[in-house]
């Protein structure tokens, strides 16, 4: 499939393939039609995590390394994955290995900051916990000054930190952009609210997609932290009680809501948690009725997640159509909306 290789903002004109499992149909629309496809009583849940410029460069014992933060800090320790010399232009599977490290080793960042390897996780010796020499405020400041967005070899140029933020980004928790929400602008947020659609948020620490380390990559996605505010839980409960649909923007939101529900007898509850579940065709969803995501290829974990929302034959038809009409994949690509009943609304609006 075609890859979107240049960053773009998206906006209301962005292409969106709509898959309606209830109407057993697929059609093409734009992000700007989202408010028309939804209605009063529906609730849209976005991931408001800002994206950390999580790729840092430095040296360990004289060896050039790239460090990719794997999530936000916990007790002043930053989870990270070490990669060898080189940068995003080389596929992660072809990157040089970093030097073997031991606890207590020093990582010297390009700006001179000396970071300590404070821990090594059991998954791989490249999966480490970093400790900055300063308090959290100064650590954040360093990361936002020297860090670059994590990006992959299919991109054509360096991506800027501002290009990996959603328009409503809040806490810097994600290390890769919660990209399903990238095309949702302030105008769309406002238009959804005017339509009577409730728009609420949770924060999910969207993690790494690939590292080049066989042990880590086999375990992806790693457990990811999330926090669901009480307001969001209440909005979902109201929608459920009144027949509204719960629309997750992004697979990270599906994961957080379903993880919370799986631990609390089918209802998501407010508070923090860690998402370890992986969703697929056999998943019984407890909370989420619909999902706005990127365009995903069969065989990827994101496409498997769509299998929890639509039957395989419908997804196969959608894929054929996406290829035929040149929809683009990856974080700057086009959108997919799986929404039961979408075709009915679409006809009514048209």
């Amino acid at each position, binding site marked *: 499939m075609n890859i979107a290789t240049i960053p773009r903002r998206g906006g209301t004109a962005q292409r969106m393939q709509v898959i309606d499992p209830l109407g057993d149909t697929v059609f093409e629309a734009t992000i700007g039609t989202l408010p028309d496809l939804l209605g009063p009583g529906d609730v849209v849940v976005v991931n*408001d995590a800002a994206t950390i410029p999580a790729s840092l460069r430095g040296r360990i014992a004289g060896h050039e390394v790239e460090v990719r933060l794997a999530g936000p800090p916990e007790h002043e320790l930053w989870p990270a994955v070490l990669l060898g010399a080189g940068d995003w232009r080389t596929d992660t599977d072809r990157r040089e290995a970093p030097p073997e490290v031991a606890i207590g080793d020093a990582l010297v960042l390009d700006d001179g900051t000396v970071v300590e390897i404070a821990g090594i996780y059991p998954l791989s010796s490249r999966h480490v916990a970093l400790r900055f020499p300063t308090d959290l*405020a100064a650590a954040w400041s360093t990361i*936002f000054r020297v860090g670059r967005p994590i990006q992959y070899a299919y991109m054509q140029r360096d991506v800027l930190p501002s290009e990996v933020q959603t328009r409503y980004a*809040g*806490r810097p928790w994600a290390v890769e952009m919660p990209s399903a929400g990238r095309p949702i602008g302030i105008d769309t947020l*406002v238009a959804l609210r005017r339509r009577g659609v409730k728009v609420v948020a949770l924060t999910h620490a969207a993690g790494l997609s690939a590292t080049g380390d066989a042990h880590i990559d086999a375990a992806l996605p790693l457990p990811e932290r999330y926090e669901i505010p009480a307001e969001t839980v209440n909005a979902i409960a109201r929608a459920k009680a009144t027949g509204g649909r719960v629309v997750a923007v992004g697979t990270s939101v599906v994961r957080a809501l379903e993880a919370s529900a799986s631990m609390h007898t089918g209802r998501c509850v407010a508070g923090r948690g860690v998402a370890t579940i992986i969703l697929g065709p056999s998943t019984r969803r407890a909370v989420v009725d619909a999902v706005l995501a990127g365009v995903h290829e069969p065989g990827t974990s994101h496409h498997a997640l769509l299998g929890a929302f639509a039957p395989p034959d419908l997804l196969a038809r959608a894929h054929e159509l996406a290829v035929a009409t040149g929809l683009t994949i990856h974080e700057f690509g086009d959108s997919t909306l799986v929404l039961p009943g979408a075709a009915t609304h679409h006809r009514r609006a048209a």
Partner: protein
Amino acid sequence: MTNQRDVALITGASRGLGFALAQALARCGAKVAMVARDAGVLERAAAEIRREGGTVATIVDDVGDPAAALRIAAQTHALVGAPTLVIHNASTLGAVPLVSLAETDPDAFAATLATNVTGPFALTRALVGSMVLAGRGTIVHISSDAAVEAYPTWGAYGASKAALDHLSRIWAAELAGTGVSVIAVDPGEMATKMHADAVPDADPATLGDPNVVAARIVALVRMGAVPSGARVVAVNVEEAA
């Protein structure tokens, strides 16, 4: 609107009106992110508020730098939470002593606009989405009577403050109905370092006390009585209330 859960972001917070605002808001129980360029002065200012029991975080940055908005927004969210109040207080006179427009270097003029207009615009842009999502927030632009009166030699500063006033009105128009309000406040002449730089021979006794002005602005925001899009003059606040 100010209560225990409020989070304020103030630029130019290490001294003058910005510091007085940070202190006044911290005394009301707000968590405050303080932004300034000079780390030493900022840390001393923050330490003074912490000694009183206030909760503040410091962000060393320059709002005139186009890349600063994202850094400041993200660090504010990370350190003190989602801001409910943003006060664009940082501003520069440009080169002092002040000179006429005819003698003003175009690069210096552009630098003044970068700090006084483009910086606040970019920072609001980086924060406004999360405020719209939350359905609430107040954005305050600290203006000046130089935005309205044509004072000779105050060209770059005056033009920047006039632009800031209009920026404030347009934000307000675009954000109508979102729960986010945007206002401009003219604090009046105050005994601050900036005023001393501009008018070195002014008698401080004739100037406003930044602490008094800050208390008025905090009261104004707290009452929520100023309609979005309005421009108020701080010395008139008590009459208005």
